């Protein structure tokens, strides 16, 4: 070698670069003296006891109260700006919803039960609902919780300048919406004209545009801000330790978004869900590390959305983990395909039927979703949801039958797929797992019908702009929808009624849903009308239903409490709207 004549330098020759490395170490070590590990306040605390700050005794197998710490994870890449539902529903920090109670709650069987309101009744004309607040509820600064807080909150959410991201909700309830909501949002009336009024400190009236029986369930969304704090500091007062105030079971004690958020049991809380936990800690991390953090014992729960198919394989192979995976309904989410039925080729019912019978759900669900995450869907309402098809009566309308699918396609004028225009299935910014599902769905249809379908997975905002455009700019796509409130008037009426989310219209369906939504006094008939409406939906193929998603949470074995209690169908775990479960969770030995 040409360089052999050069004598190799000894190790001291590498001094300069090594000094750089040493600098790294020095930066780590030469630091000011560390702060004490625990505050003096903590050091002065009484020895651990098994009694909560509310005087309630912990279960026999519980760790001492000081160790009642529940640790959850938040996605570090998800933006958030508030804790509070009335400020921004889709942009909330972890541990949201613990700083106030909603007017009502739901039990594990999804029955509406008292929350901040202990009772309610409706006027004779069915339009004015009166909610009676529990007496003695108080904010953490000592201010009593009153109906005026709810009134001020509702008015804030309806104020056009506030631009509430959930304001569509009370508008899309239409006749069931709160009186004057849409006019106030449009700036035609002042917020004081809203049909939500405080009659006195403990009485709140909610007036609807028309008769709307599910209204109490909708009040699951009736969160409240403190009127005083709202006036003094504005709607973001909970995003600061100096101005935060809570009437819920927890108060904010540490706020470092992107790093850590901590809440502790609210000593002034006098509501319906006094927690056994002393503290909840939320640590921000990447979604891909949730499972590793769980395995490392750093967090106590991982939601199913953070678990990959590989994670599920590990979970199912491990007895401890599989017995601690609590599968539940989530928000009764359904994945489905949608069309623009006002334009060719999907204006032709035979084309839609051909597509509906060409999806091999029975294979796609176990092989692509995994059975722990989904069940095949043949209709919109997931079994377990009110008026859902638990008996499988609707299955025949959209079951996989390739021969039948081809008959329909031929009847539509495309025998053997000949001449059928190439299609693009638009996806709403799906992650790899769901993109794989829709790839499989597209492949199933394309293979069965001998047609071409491409997948276009676009940014969510682009997708929603196309979906919401009037007329729609989305010819063929896939989407999912979870309930907004627990009544078929939501998942059938609000989602599928004409002029709503999708470009499909059926007069019989509209008539059935409209009549059923406002029906009082005959729950059996109401239920049957919704069932009939759903039959129309699947038979007329407003959409092609792929799967109902099972949700679930992987809990640490030491997390115990009512979260593990089954509902009447034997389903354990978290249930939507069942806010009091947080009160029943404790950390066992």
């Amino acid at each position: 070698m040409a360089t052999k004549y050069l004598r190799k330098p000894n190790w001291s020759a590498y001094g300069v670069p090594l000094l750089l490395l040493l600098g790294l170490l020095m930066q780590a070590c030469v630091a000011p003296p560390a702060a004490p590990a625990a505050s003096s306040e903590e050091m002065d605390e009484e020895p651990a006891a098994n009694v909560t700050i509310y005087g309630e005794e912990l279960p026999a197998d519980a760790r001492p109260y000081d160790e009642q710490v529940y640790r959850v994870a938040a996605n570090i890449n998800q933006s958030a700006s508030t804790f509070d539902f009335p400020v921004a529903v889709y942009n909330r920090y972890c541990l949201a919803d613990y700083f106030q109670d909603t007017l009502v709650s739901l039990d594990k069987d999804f029955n509406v039960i008292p929350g901040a309101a202990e009772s309610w009744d409706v006027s004779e004309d069915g339009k004015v609902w009166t909610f009676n607040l529990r007496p003695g509820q108080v904010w953490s600064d000592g201010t009593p919780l009153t109906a005026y807080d709810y009134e001020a909150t509702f008015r804030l959410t309806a104020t056009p300048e506030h631009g509430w991201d959930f304001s569509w909700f009370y508008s899309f309830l239409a006749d069931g919406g709160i009186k004057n909501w849409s006019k106030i949002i449009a700036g035609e009336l002042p917020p004081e004209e809203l049909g939500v009024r405080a009659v006195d400190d403990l009485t709140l009236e909610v007036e609807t545009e028309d008769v709307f029986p599910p209204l109490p369930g909708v009040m699951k969304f009736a969160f409240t801000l403190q009127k005083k704090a709202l006036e003094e500091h504005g709607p973001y007062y909970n995003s600061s330790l100096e101005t935060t105030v809570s009437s819920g079971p927890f108060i904010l004690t540490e706020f470092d978004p992107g790093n850590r958020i901590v809440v502790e049991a609210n000593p002034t809380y006098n509501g319906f869900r006094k927690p056994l936990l002393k503290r909840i800690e939320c640590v921000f991390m990447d979604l891909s590390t949730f499972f590793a953090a769980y395995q490392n014992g750093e967090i106590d729960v991982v939601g199913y959305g953070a678990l990959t198919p590989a994670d599920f394989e590990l979970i199912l192979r491990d007895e401890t983990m599989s017995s601690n995976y609590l599968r539940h309904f989530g928000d009764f989410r359904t994945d489905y395909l949608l069309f623009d039925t006002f334009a060719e080729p999907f204006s032709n019912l035979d084309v839609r039927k051909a597509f509906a019978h060409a999806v091999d759900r029975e294979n796609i669900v176990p092989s692509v979703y995994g059975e722990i995450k989904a069940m095949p869907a043949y209709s919109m309402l997931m079994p377990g949801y009110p008026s859902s098809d638990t008996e499988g009566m609707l299955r025949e309308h959209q079951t996989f039958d390739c021969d039948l699918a081809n008959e329909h396609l031929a009847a539509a004028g495309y025998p053997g797929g000949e001449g059928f225009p190439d299609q693009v299935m638009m996806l709403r910014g799906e992650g790899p797992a769901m993109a794989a599902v829709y790839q499989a769905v597209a492949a199933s249809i394309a293979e069965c019908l001998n047609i071409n379908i491409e997948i276009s997975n676009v940014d969510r905002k682009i997708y929603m702009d196309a979906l919401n455009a009037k007329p729609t700019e989305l010819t063929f796509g896939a989407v999912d929808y979870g309930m907004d409130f627990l009544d078929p008037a939501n998942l059938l009426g609000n989602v599928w009624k004409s002029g709503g989310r999708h470009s499909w219209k059926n007069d019989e369906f509209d008539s059935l849903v409209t009549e059923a939504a406002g029906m009082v006094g005959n729950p059996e008939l109401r239920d049957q009308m919704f069932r009939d409406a759903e039959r129309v939906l699947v038979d007329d193929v407003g959409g092609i239903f792929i799967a109902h998603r099972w949700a679930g949470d992987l809990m640490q074995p030491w997390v115990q409490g009512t979260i593990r209690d089954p509902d009447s169908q034997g389903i354990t775990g978290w249930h939507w709207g069942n806010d009091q479960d947080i009160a029943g969770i404790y950390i066992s030995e």
Partner: protein
Amino acid sequence: MARYILGRVLSLILVLFVVSVVTFFLMHQVPGGPFDETKAPLPPAAKQNILRKYGLDKPIHIQYLNYMKNAVLHFDFGIPYQQPTTTVTALIAKSWKLTVQVGAMTVILAFGAGFTLGIYAAYHQNSWIDNATTFIAMLGITVPSFVVAMWLILFFAVRLKWLPMGGWNASGSCLIGNDFICTDWIMPVVAYALGPLAIIARYTRASVVDVMRQDFTRTAQAKGLGSQAIMYRHILRNALIPMVTALGVIVPNLLTGSIFIEAVFRINGLGRFFVTSIFNRDYPMIMALFLLIAFLWSMTYLFTDILYTWIDPRVRLGAEGGA
């Protein structure tokens, strides 16, 4: 030199202007707006109110002029739509502090270790350490940092439980008694540094080997200079030039953060905002980030140009021309 630097600073202003114009108009061309809904449309009147609140109802050129006026005159880059309780400046100041800490340590490790390995490999060509350096370099170049990060987490945190899975002690207090508590620095810096370290090691090895074969090196040897003197005065100094070029490319990247490293190791830094601000169409944040990147790149190139003249006196900046 001063004239050259002044010229470069003036051209920097032009660069920032062009970047601001292109970014502003391009981001407004992307379909979907910051307040487009994910579930259902806002009533048109409500949406109009929000747009008015943020000045988005005005013609786009007016929006640009307003933005630049506030940015230039008041150093006010607006309110981030993602976190309306703070300002873009405050948000960047808070998160960039951590990113710079991570980046600076990564630069030190990558350049320190990469340089050392490269020199050693050059002096011990085809030895086992040369082969090992090549292997590490290939690993660092080919395996993405987030994969390395996951390997490190699974091995050192989950399996061995030697290191914490994530977090970043930004307090500056790393010692409690005799206990070193900044162990959460180790994995992010190592994972982040591996890629640039590999590049630097390869650059260094190639440069050193090249210089070792030059006539002037042989002459120095013939004159009887000691091997360390030859290394410091002749070999390293000449080998540094390509290193400075690498520095200009690597440093701005490291100082603006990595979404993967920061997310995987729970570092509340700047990296994630590059993605979330685009997803959320957070126009003020996008503008500020792109201007920051443009500024950093321009400054780094200016700095490296000046560094060339120090390393190699033959290099002349400005009108005098090069060597």
